[in-house]
């Protein structure tokens, strides 16, 4: 018994070392949240300043805004992107020819290869006021141009749209894998029972996809407070008039680092991100565990 888990431990060792070296050791940096970082003194030698860094975050007045935006966008992203991905996966899996399946899959996957940097340049070309593609079109139809980059509310739609555009193909592959795993006999049986396609989807496919969906959801919840920096940064960048509806914790941390290079403040915000994320996960995980133990993360 003892011997057996030793081999397993040994097998896990490279991975454990990796996480130790590249994740746990740098975590010591979290102490900087309570310090004033002084390069000459190093991380451990820098003086403690208590909660002063957190005071800044509160003082900046942005904390509530960025937290709410972060959560809100994550919910919107998950609902739009993943629900669409599930349906795309279901629809594509059902298509008659393998070649057609592949054709659609490839196209859906295309945008994943265009980096967000390109996306930012592209978005500006699409939406800028003077000669953006959309506004040129609107004007040729005799309509008023839309000032996208100065209209806060629109971004609740624009950002999810770009998010879907970039990730829906990627996400649908994961769901596709879950669907392809369903045993053929089940479909056979349903067909003999005279079930319509809709009914089959509802009673067989969707239940099969749910575990994957839940795992992804849980994962997203843990990551909720961070991630997606690329999307927000490249699409919105320095455009401060939009911050009310587009500023998330990640972009906030980034600016704290770039504008002030205040490592203490950036770390403190990161710490806040982590703790908040941890509570979210523990909460949701407990909930999932209560409903179905198998689907929970740990």
């Amino acid at each position, binding site marked *: 018994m003892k011997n057996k888990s030793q081999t397993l431990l040994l097998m896990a060792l490279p991975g*454990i070392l990796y996480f*130790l070296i590249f994740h*746990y*050791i740098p*975590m*010591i940096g979290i102490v900087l949240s309570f310090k*004033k*970082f*002084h*390069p*000459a*003194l*190093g*991380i*451990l030698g820098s003086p403690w300043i208590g909660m*002063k*860094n957190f*005071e*800044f975050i509160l*003082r*900046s*007045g*942005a904390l509530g805004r960025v937290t709410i935006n972060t959560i809100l966008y994550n919910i919107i992203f998950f609902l739009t992107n993943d629900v669409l991905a599930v349906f795309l996966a279901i629809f594509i899996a059902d298509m008659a020819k393998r070649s057609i399946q592949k054709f659609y899959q490839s196209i859906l996957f295309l945008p994943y290869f265009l980096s967000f940097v390109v996306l*930012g*340049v592209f978005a*500006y070309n699409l*939406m*800028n*006021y*003077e000669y953006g593609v959309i506004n040129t079109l609107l004007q040729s139809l005799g309509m008023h141009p839309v*000032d*996208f*980059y*100065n209209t806060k509310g629109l971004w609740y739609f624009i950002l999810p749209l770009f998010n879907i555009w970039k990730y829906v193909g990627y996400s649908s592959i994961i769901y596709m894998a879950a669907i392809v795993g369903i045993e053929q006999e089940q479909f056979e049986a349903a067909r003999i029972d005279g079930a319509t396609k809709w009914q089959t989807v509802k009673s067989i496919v969707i239940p099969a996809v749910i575990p994957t969906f839940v795992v992804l959801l849980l994962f997203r919840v843990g990551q909720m407070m961070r991630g997606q920096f690329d999307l927000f940064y490249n699409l*919105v*960048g*320095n*455009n*401060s*008039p939009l*911050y009310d509806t587009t500023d998330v914790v990640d972009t906030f941390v980034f*600016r*704290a*680092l*770039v*504008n*002030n*290079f*205040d*490592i203490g*403040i950036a770390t403190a915000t990161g710490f806040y991100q982590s703790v908040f994320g941890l509570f979210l996960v523990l909460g949701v995980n407990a909930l999932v565990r209560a409903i179905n133990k198998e689907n929970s993360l740990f």
Partner: protein
Amino acid sequence: MKRGAALLFMAVLVITSVFANGRAEEASENEFVELKMYLVGDTVPDYDMMLDELNVLMEEDINASLDVNFTTWVDWQTKLRLILSSGEKVDLVHMAPWGIYSEQAQAGSLMDIRNLAPTYAPETWNSYNPDILKQTEINGGVYMMPFRYTEPIGQGIVYRKDLAKKYGINEVNSTESLMALLKAVHDNEAMVPFNAGEFDLTVWIGMAGMIQNSRPQSAFKVLLENTEGVIAYVNYDQPETILYDYESAYYKETMDFMRTMYNEELIPRNVLSNTIGSREAFLAGKSAMTTLNPLNANEEFQKIQNSNPEWELGYWLPMTTMASHEKAPAINNGMSIPTASENPERALMLLEKLHQDQRYHDLTTYGVQGVHWELTSDGEITAPQGLDLSDSGFQWDRPCPWGWREEKFYRLNVLKSPSVWGEVKASQETMYDIGVERKWTDFTFDKSNVSTEISALNTVRTGVFSALSWGLMDVEEGYQELIDDYDNAGIETVKQELEDQWSAYLAGN
């Protein structure tokens, strides 16, 4: 869970032991070393070709070679700060008061060279004017070897004079004539008159203030500024009163001006998201103006003129209308040795060569003789036969040799060079005439007591401030928001601290 805790504990042990490690021993004086240098901005295609030649000289003279890295302009400050605060083993970095010199010197990541420099760079060190060294002082230490050159100063506007003339404007030399040009272009040409973008964000905000009629008309000293511009300053003739940029008349005038630009569609509506700067648009014939630093105005002028011979270019340096202006800092560029360097002696020996040996200066500034530059019979620098300067692999003075520039070696002096663009030369002569010696150069605001407030202030400036500065908000509404944000950020505390330090300084002098 116990296991996890044990692992965590182990990790902590590992780190503590490693992070507590001291500095490695230094290379002895006669051993061959490779020096590592960081310069700001971008490199040029033929930089390595030049470096090969330089390394031959260096090996012979100081038994060392040089490895140069560039930060690129996109994120040079963050990159330099990371390098310096992480204690990377770098031997030389470009430093400037317009960069992060005082911040990093105060943070202790730069070496105080007062002890080593007299031994390892004696000629250069001993020939510095004491006034200049005083300017480099931060809390009594000297953390950079400054260059020795009076730099052209100010930030100017280059515009399409041919378009201006077409619409009956002879010259742009005031806010009014600038507006007239931009409006005429808006009404008649297929371009956004000032097609600004990200590139212009930092430069233009300061410029816009400078072209206002109510701006300070004589020399002033900046006491507190950040990347977005000046916050506090004093006039030379009235140093007791600290003035605040955002409370001044010209600040509001600037906002009104920018709001007009925005409303009249003289700038792109979405300027904050535009990744194409006005320089690029100007070159493509899609903007009637852009900003241009007199430092490289001449070079840019020749390039643009070569590609577009049918254009006529005009240059306006708004500061020339001031009654007096403080001269450019004598330490506007320099080289520093990071605390983490293992070869400070050799680094200083290299600086000595760069400052005292014309071959070193010429190589790093103009490239390889015969390939990138040539001398005329009367000693003027010129392009070798058949080389178009604008597609040279080593653009003169471009890859950041500014940190060790020497008046006695420098061949591109705007005031002395005969081939210089007339309008730039004229503006620099004026600047020279109205220049007054800098005062209170050894005052540095010590921010350590108010660092949280300063950080908060900087955040405000990237928020409502930039929107206001580009006319994206209603002036009254936006200004009120700005004041509120400043108050929340704790500007009163900063003001108090600054006033205390400044009056203590004045009393001590």
